[in-house]
């Protein structure tokens, strides 16, 4: 589904070029549930931003379902992301002034979907996530777990092929975290490809494949045991 070839991301700083991703080669297959792990500053969120097509400043090759993303313009990338990618954030990032229903509707509002159809899709999603009773509440009236539930519902309402989650349970206590992770597993089983970033081993256990990053390098991948270890790279 996705191939990254020699992908690099760096920033110019006063001290010179600072790399946050180095020579990333990654093949993500349809239906995988990948966990990205690593210490802070390893490049996990940067990798997620690249995958989400929020970041344009990388070099290398990015293929999405055989389409060369690296040759696309910003607008084309935006369209691609809009159709195929859903995102879940650690801080939920619900809009304070919108109700649960309106927050869930938000991604649809940026697509050419008739209003009536959108209403139907929102109703289905509310039903599916069992939050119908909360549809008219504002985010501030929900618990953290409920907010993240809405965040996930919003991410998947347009049935994205790829769901990206950045520390989705970071702000939740364990029982809420478990609930969300089980929801991810269900979504994955229904065919959604998921890439999550986490520090938690128990969350990683929900995934089918784990990759480790350090200082921007991909240092391990359970699907690729032959990958050079970090020590070798450093040398």
């Amino acid at each position, binding site marked *: 589904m996705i191939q990254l070839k020699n992908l690099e991301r760096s920033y110019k700083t006063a001290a010179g070029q600072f790399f946050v991703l180095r020579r990333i080669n990654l093949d993500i297959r349809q239906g995988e549930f990948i966990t990205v792990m690593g210490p802070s500053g390893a490049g996990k*969120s940067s990798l997620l*931003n690249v995958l*989400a097509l*929020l*970041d344009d400043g990388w070099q290398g090759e990015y293929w999405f379902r055989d389409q060369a993303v690296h040759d696309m313009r910003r*607008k084309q990338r*935006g*369209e691609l*992301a*809009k159709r195929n990618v859903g*995102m879940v*954030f*650690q*801080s939920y*990032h619900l*809009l*304070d*002034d919108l109700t649960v229903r309106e927050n869930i509707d*938000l*991604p649809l509002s*940026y*697509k050419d979907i008739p209003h009536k159809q959108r209403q139907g899709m929102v109703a289905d999603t509310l039903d599916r996530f069992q939050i119908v009773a909360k549809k008219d509440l504002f985010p501030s009236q929900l618990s953290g777990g409920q907010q993240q539930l809405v965040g996930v519902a*919003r991410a998947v309402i*347009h049935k994205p092929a790829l769901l990206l989650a*950045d*520390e989705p349970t970071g702000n939740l206590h364990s029982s809420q975290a478990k609930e969300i992770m089980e929801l991810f597993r269900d979504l994955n089983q229904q065919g959604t490809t998921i890439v999550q970033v986490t520090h938690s081993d128990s969350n990683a256990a929900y995934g089918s494949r784990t990759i480790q990053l350090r200082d921007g390098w991909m240092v391990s991948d359970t699907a690729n045991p032959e990958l050079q270890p970090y020590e070798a790279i450093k040398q």
Partner: protein
Amino acid sequence: MNTILTNLRYAFRVLRKSPGFTLVAAVTLALGIASTTAIFSMVDQVLLHSLPYPHSDRIVYVSQTDRPTGEGDATSPANYLDWLAQNRVFSQMAASRGWQGNLGGERPERIRITMASASFFPLFGVRTLLGRSLLPEDESPGHDHVAVISYALWKRRFNADRALLNQDITLNNEKYTIIGVMPPNFAPDNHGELWVPSPWSVPAHPLVPSQDPRQFRSRNYLDVWARLKPGVTLQQARSEMDAIARRLEKQYPDDNRDVAIGVTGMQDSLVSDVRPVLYVLLGAVVFVLLIGCANVANLLLARGKGRSREVSIRAALGASRAGLIWQLLTESVLLALLGGLLGILLAAWGVPVLLTLAPAEIRELGAVGVNTEILVLGLLLSLATGILFGLAPAFHLANENLQESLKEGERGSTGHGGRTRSILVVAEVGLSLILLIGAGLTIKSFVRVLRVDPGFDPTHLLVFSVGLPSSATPAQQDNFYRQVTESFQELPGVQLAGAVSRLPLSGGNSSRSFKVPGNDRGYSADIRVSTPEYFRTMGIPIIRGRFLTAHDIEGSTPVVVVNEALAEGAFPGQDPIGKFLLDFGPGSEKLQIVGVIGNVRHVGLEIAPHYEAYLPFGQAHWPSVFMAVRTRTTDPLALVPAVQNAVWSVDKSVPLSDVRTMHDVVARSLRQRKFTMTLLGIFAGLAVALAAVGLYGVMSYSVVQRTHEIGIRMALGAQQHDVLKMVVQRGMSLAGVGVILGVAASFGLTRLISHLLFGVSPSDPVTFLAVAVLLMSVALFANYIPARRATQVDPMVALRCE
């Protein structure tokens, strides 16, 4: 005291720390305060300042008025004498009349003369600077050739020579002795440069100066002034004069039918024309000031976001709510005073500039400028505005939730003063729309007035006032104007020349009553005396019959040329040629109509033509005239020396005055309208600019506040155009609400300026629509820049708080 000083010191430090904010806020306030101060200095001097006469509030102008229409007229000598004898409400009464005369000497000069009764000077209670004023003994034949001169004439013509008293001057070829010089600013009738007595205690009629005027009841030419007795109110005076008017109407039904008596406070009578204009402009600048205040309040609210933490810490350390508000208000007031000082400086510079545009009533009514009173007013205004715009932000900050402000992270709350700021912007847009509509309506009126056909062709016309002494006989006058006209026509560059008693759009008018055969109804027509060439010179077309000719002289059939309005009004459906005007004027003349000419807008371009009757100089007498010279040059003023020499070649003692082009005459007649239009335009422009800045500020601030939200939206699929649309929609909805409220308010408020409009309704839909579209376009532009910036939000940066 210590707290005030501490607050002031801290306020200084805060303002110095953010010079950009301080500068923008101070300049915004300065513009509002400068506009208000400048216009108020005019209002103060023209409307509020007492006239320079003792107890001037008791001086009134008394005049004959037409009872059905309420229109004022001059007063006849016989009526004046009856009023004088019968009233018990005035302690003094005086009569005067103005005209122009030739002051002889090496440099003959045409000056404005007032013939006044001896009671004139005591009534105004002003002592002479030198010598004495007129006394009752000056009002007897043989002793009446004395003159009192104005301060301006004394300085200009006589170099302020203190030995001038008892010296002789030549006035209209007669010797007069100067007996006194008046102090500066003595101009009760807004006319005289020189005052002379009348040998009959009542000023003589200008056309029959040698006749005793005391029996004239149908010749209205006097200005009458009176001083109310102590304790008598204006209303009491009006009641008594009304009773006298009804008595005289019964006694003299022929001359006094429907003649009422108007009693107006002197200040009112002098400023009645400009008062509504100044009030409208004052209203306009108050709007500008309010918009300025709203802008600064918005800036303070925006800045408040950055200061909420500081305020919370102060509160946590024990500052009371009142103490916090007091400290924040100190900053606003200091800022306002800074703006006020800048504004006063701006006004001091701007008032003289505005005065160059102002109509004569404003320029001549006193020393308009920034004086101590205005300075104090400006500072008080600054203080008030400081409190006005500072109060909302101060309360806002002082009422913040302490804990939340201290805990608040980078995300911040999205509603910080948001509603207040939106309301302020809506108000700004609404107020500027009202001003813009006012300006739009006056501009449209001005354009309509400019399109009015004046009835003559003002291009290439040179005009000036010229006059023979009033002692000249009709034959001498006729001869003089004929010779002068002939000498002009010999000049290269001159096409035609003519003379007329009253030039269109130059002020002044004279009317005569008349009847028509087979109709008892009385009519009134404005009288003009002209040379035959006058019509062709001015480009006034003949509609029927003929113009006046050189053969219309004393001894031949008395003839008259009338305008279309008279022909259609007095002879409806008939051919007036050959018909007669009967009982014309006090001489009850019978005049045969020989021609009908096109209508001329004499009183004003926006005023419908009156009935007009043109008599030939050969058969009618008029002491002073205007001459019109149609030139072949685009710069008629270049011919002035040649024209002056041509006049002097006929009579060396006759000066020219008021030398202008006819275009200039037309422009001067529009001066008040242009003044109002220009100032309203400037204030509306200022208001729109301030409102646009306000809108821009609010939307920019909103974009900064919503960066995080925009980042989320972009991460969820929003494209640049979605973000652009979202921000613009929000700004335009604010502007839209402002426009709707402004339009609603304008429907009511524009009625207040209906008297300033011409040919356009106060609720003119085209103007309302055009202004609304214009303002929405400006709002769109003001919105577009922050909206454009919003599209550049990098979702990764916006979400980095993760």
